[in-house]
């Protein structure tokens, strides 16, 4: 940090004047010390950081490039030979019925899970923000599903939704209804997965919204309250606009994670009938029945581009915010 404070074997000046010495010292000598020291720092830095940086390079950056390369191949996973076909995989995807189906499923799943967990999360955050006892416990409780295994959660809800012996079927029988075919009907499967996904993730939105609510300027809110603004009015015309940075942050992060949702879809609807989003379709194509590695890579690249656009949007927004505040 401060070079003149390091031990200097060359200078045998008395300690009292040692501090002022560097200024009067000849420049070349100073530069020489500097470079030995920075060479040592150079080596230390590499020794400390290189393992992690190499791992990130090999398993995070390299796959991005490889994915683009694989997407230009007509290649069956496990086969030793592959033919370069250029953009054919992309053409096949976008001209087949797959594209419409998969993109629509992805859009519905993403919109419904993002909307659902944000709206419910905000409502829960409002309840958590009240001055009653037990909010700390409730806050942890609603956050809990977010950290639980998607596989475990998926199984538990699959049992609840079971049309034969599930709790939901029992409740519906109680009011004289028959349980819908959650598993066999593709559209209902999607609804089911969306419900469970929202259940698992709304705690995240609630906690982030709560942090946002608690950082609102209290004096302004109180002033509005004294001016006779009711709680609904205060919420709509003050909290909501002031929360917009939080809302935008959540919109982006939940959208990114919804687009990558895998565990629940895999465990609740292994065949992906009605629930094949881009990520699940990419998985099924490569590791399901077809082993179409090149085609799967092409879908992954499409997904990556979508995620990239969203991330760039977020970065531009943050830049703007930093710039103006």
């Amino acid at each position, binding site marked *: 940090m401060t070079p003149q*404070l390091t031990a200097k074997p060359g200078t045998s000046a008395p300690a009292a004047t040692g501090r002022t010495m560097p200024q009067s010292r000849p420049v070349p000598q100073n530069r020489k010390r500097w470079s030995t020291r920075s060479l040592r*720092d150079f080596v230390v*830095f590499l020794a*400390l950081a290189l393992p*992690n940086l190499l*791992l*990130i390079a*090999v*398993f995070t950056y*390299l*796959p*991005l490039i*490889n*994915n683009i390369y*694989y997407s230009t191949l007509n290649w069956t996973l496990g086969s030793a030979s592959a033919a370069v076909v250029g953009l054919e995989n992309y053409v096949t995807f976008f001209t087949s019925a797959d594209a419409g189906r998969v993109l629509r499923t992805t859009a519905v799943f993403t919109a419904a899970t993002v909307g659902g967990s944000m709206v419910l999360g905000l*409502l829960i955050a*409002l*309840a958590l*923000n*009240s*001055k*009653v006892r037990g909010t700390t416990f*409730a806050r942890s*409780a*609603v956050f*809990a*599903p*977010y*950290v639980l*295994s*998607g*596989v*475990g959660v998926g*199984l*538990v809800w699959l*049992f*609840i939704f*079971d049309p*034969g*012996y599930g709790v939901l079927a*029992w409740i519906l029988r109680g009011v004289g209804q028959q349980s819908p075919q959650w598993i066999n009907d593709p559209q209902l499967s999607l609804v089911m997965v969306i419900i469970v996904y929202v*259940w698992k993730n709304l705690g*995240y939105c609630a906690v*982030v919204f709560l*942090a946002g609510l608690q*950082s609102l300027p209290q004096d302004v809110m109180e002033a509005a309250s004294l001016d006779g603004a009711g709680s609904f009015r205060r*919420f709509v015309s003050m909290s909501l606009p002031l929360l917009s940075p*939080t809302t935008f942050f959540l919109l982006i*992060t939940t959208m990114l994670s919804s687009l*990558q949702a895998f*565990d629940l879809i*895999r*465990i609740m609807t292994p065949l992906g009938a009605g629930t094949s989003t881009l990520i699940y379709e*990419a*998985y099924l194509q490569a590791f399901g029945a077809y082993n179409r*590695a090149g085609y799967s*890579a092409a879908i*992954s690249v499409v997904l*990556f581009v979508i*995620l990239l656009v969203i991330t760039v949007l977020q970065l531009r927004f943050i830049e703007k915010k930093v710039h103006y505040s």
Partner: protein
Amino acid sequence: MSAPAPAVVPDGSTPGSSTPDSSTPDAAPPRARPFSRANLLQTLVGGYVPLAVAVLVVFLPLLWMVLSSFKQPGEIVTLDLQVLPAALDPENYRVAMTTVPFGQFFLNSTIVTVVGSGIKVILALLTAYALVFVRFPFKNLIFILILVALMVPAQVSILPNYILIAGMGGKNTLWGIILPGLGTAFGTFLLRQHFLTLPGSILESAEIDGAGHWRRLWQIVVPVSVPSIATVALVTVVSEWNEYIWPLIITDKPESMTLPVGLTLLQNSEGNGAGWGIMMAGAVLVIIPILLIFAMLQRYIVAGLTQGSVTG
């Protein structure tokens, strides 16, 4: 949001035994009395009821999982709902353990989680220390590359990583499960942000005393950063334990499967309704360890997982 009223009236002025609003003058708003019926109702509706509903919606499915894991097939395959199991019989757990090698899954999951998180935390510590305290020409560029890596979704990398790891002979091995996830952008980022807040003076005095980087890291930086390191460690443990897509792809033999992947196997082997009790026992085994860790240390986990929301 609701029930801001109690603050308006000092505690002594109105005795707690308040009768309904009739005694209040017209001008005063009804909520000025802390124990008035309107105020109590408002507190209940605005505060407790939504909280109670939210907590129940979270806990009832988990409670149902635990209860069902002790039920015999006859108690599940029935049209009348049986809420409580007839006995706390761990039969389902025994069956789950013998149908598939659950002990092995549990052991594999534990090894992957402990080894994986241990290495990740150390790598994050070393990289973050280097980025903050060691001089190097391209530090900003390196930091940007780490930030970008933080945003690259792991899901789109599974096919190339599968080909790479399988080519290295890592299929159905524990190192094959652990290795691709070891590079840690999240931990590095979080610890770097924390190290930047440490006062430079404590390190300078150690430097004068002749302590090298290694000693400065372990004797000064680590001891004052325990909460941040705990945050990184806990978030890493949770995600390693729950990790599904990668172990699912890189293993196809039970000996090397982790718990989430093994559960899929259990699901495949039990087709009819009678298997639900066994599957719930499996779900308990994968969910409860993390739930316990979360219950004890939730402060760190919530803080780590919602990182960025304040700065973002």
